[in-house]
């Protein structure tokens, strides 16, 4: 009887030991402008005029943790949207979070993700997905490109009359403009706890040319040609440069 109990106990302990230990990873996206939280609808200085941002969102995909050459997949695709967080200072400071449970515990040396929709998924259309999938958004598919819209950045600029009546709007998309961003730093996922990584997106850097000059938004306020090197390629490359990590 005693032996049976010990056997059972050993089996239970062995079974518990076999279970993968998991923790939670929270990616907290913080929109910023010139070092301050980005508040949509509020005026910011840009070159010698002012801007107001009203929309900033993008697909984030192939999210993974790295450890040397090994990769732990976190999520295939998700969507970052500042619209419902960054309309107040408090919301902007709290940021937009994506939370992933059941991440294998351990030490990792980096976080990697794509900005946009990877080529395989970009061959699909919103009607291929159920409404709870991030790729089901009809407003993020542009028929003329046969592509998802990877990112939207929109707002208004102060015109010569001194009013904010004119808008700017930049949409990125198409396979050639898919970019990957990698942050190399130590990340520890611990059992039953949440590891928070802050991902700061500097919106001033998003709208600057590679040489650091300001882009002429007033005279080039929209884009629809994905092969146009300015502003689209500027923008997709900037998404990489404008992102910084903090733990």
């Amino acid at each position, binding site marked *: 009887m005693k032996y049976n109990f010990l056997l059972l106990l050993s089996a239970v302990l062995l079974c518990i030991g076999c279970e993968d230990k998991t923790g939670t990873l929270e990616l907290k996206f913080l929109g910023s402008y010139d070092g301050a939280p980005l508040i949509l609808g509020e005026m910011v200085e840009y070159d010698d005029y002012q801007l*107001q941002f009203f929309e900033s969102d993008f697909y984030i995909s192939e999210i993974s943790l790295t450890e040397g050459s090994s990769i732990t997949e976190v999520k295939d695709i998700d969507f970052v949207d500042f619209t*419902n967080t960054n*309309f107040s200072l408090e919301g902007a400071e709290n940021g937009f979070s994506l939370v992933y449970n059941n991440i294998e515990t351990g030490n990792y040396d980096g976080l990697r993700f794509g900005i946009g929709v990877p080529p395989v998924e970009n061959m699909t259309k919103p009607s*291929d997905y159920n409404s709870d999938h991030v790729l089901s958004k009809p407003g993020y598919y542009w028929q003329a490109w046969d592509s998802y819209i990877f990112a939207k950045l929109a707002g208004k600029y102060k015109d010569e009359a001194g009013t904010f009546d*004119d808008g700017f*709007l930049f949409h990125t998309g198409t396979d050639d403009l898919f970019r990957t961003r990698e942050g190399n730093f130590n990340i520890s996922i611990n059992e039953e706890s949440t590891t928070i990584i802050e991902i700061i997106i500097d919106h001033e850097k998003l709208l600057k040319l590679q040489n650091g000059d300001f882009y002429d938004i007033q005279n080039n306020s*929209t884009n629809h040609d994905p092969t146009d090197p300015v502003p689209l390629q500027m923008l997709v490359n900037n998404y990489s440069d404008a992102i910084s990590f903090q733990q």
Partner: protein
Amino acid sequence: MKQLSFLILLAFALIACESCDPDPISGISLTHIEYSPTSFDLEKPANFPELEIPSDNPLTVEKIELGRHLFYDPILSADSTMSCASCHLPELAFTDNLAFSEGIDGIAGNRSSMSIVNVGFYYTGLFWDGRSQTLEDQAILPVEDPIELHNNWPELMEKLRSSELYQRLFREAFGIDNTLEMTKELAAKAISSFERVIISGDAKIDRFTLNIGVLTDEELEGFEMFFDINPDLPDAECGHCHSYPLMTTNEFRNNGISEADDLADFPDKGYGTLTGNPLDNGKFRSPSLRNIQLSGPYMHDGRFETLREVIEHYNSGGKSSPNKDPLIYPLGLTEEQKDNLEAFLHTMLDTSYLDKDYITNPFD
């Protein structure tokens, strides 16, 4: 003898009548009515997204039939003069051609009646301001709205429980055993089921997209401007809010029809009332453009009588407000280009649903 026959007949009539009027405490049994639900064979255009049906409200022929009766029956209004179909007429793409629909008391609201064609595919909130998340939630509201049917559900359900027709239809739809089980929630499920099968996807634009039909030169040029396909033509910026196949992105936008100095200044805050986000003030659902020539007047407040007025509005760049969509700016379209755009809008006409016997008025 004649008098006796009359009395006997009268007694039978009274007994018969008594049996239709259920006891409010015990109700009446419905188990003698056969319950044999039949799954509905949905005809959905291949290029449409999945029609997502709640797991607790699967589509059946019997539920759609009950919903069809409820939709067209003026019993839903307090004075039995108006039904859902009074503001959603099938021949007008389920709208009423009024800027503001009037309820039974002659009170007009401040929003235009929306088309419910393809409404089953709207997953981001219903009504112009998105205040109902599901059709089941939405179907509850107009019955008690004082500017619509101005009834109350308890009284309406008493009327329905007293009706032999609805006793049978509720039993056949839901398998309930007793009239007391007839509820507003079941009525809403039935109406939702009916609304989900009002599908339109066989317009000229669909046949063109599937390469089984052609557009005229004018329509084709309109198509290219609508979706910004031809770099030699101006971009009319329509496709951002009205994408194929539903001809709506199911989003909420400020399309520049109201002037506002600041975000609190909109006469109707629309979507902002729901979200509490001031940046959403003055935003309204981008409606589907399918059957658009039937569903005027246009915009949430019916301010534009014709499609040409709508095109002129967008071509003008709209009125100023802090969160006006950046896509609303002067387009510089010529008169011919406006004609072509309008011609393209007409390719979205498809009223084949009017021929479906599960959609037509059962009381006609």
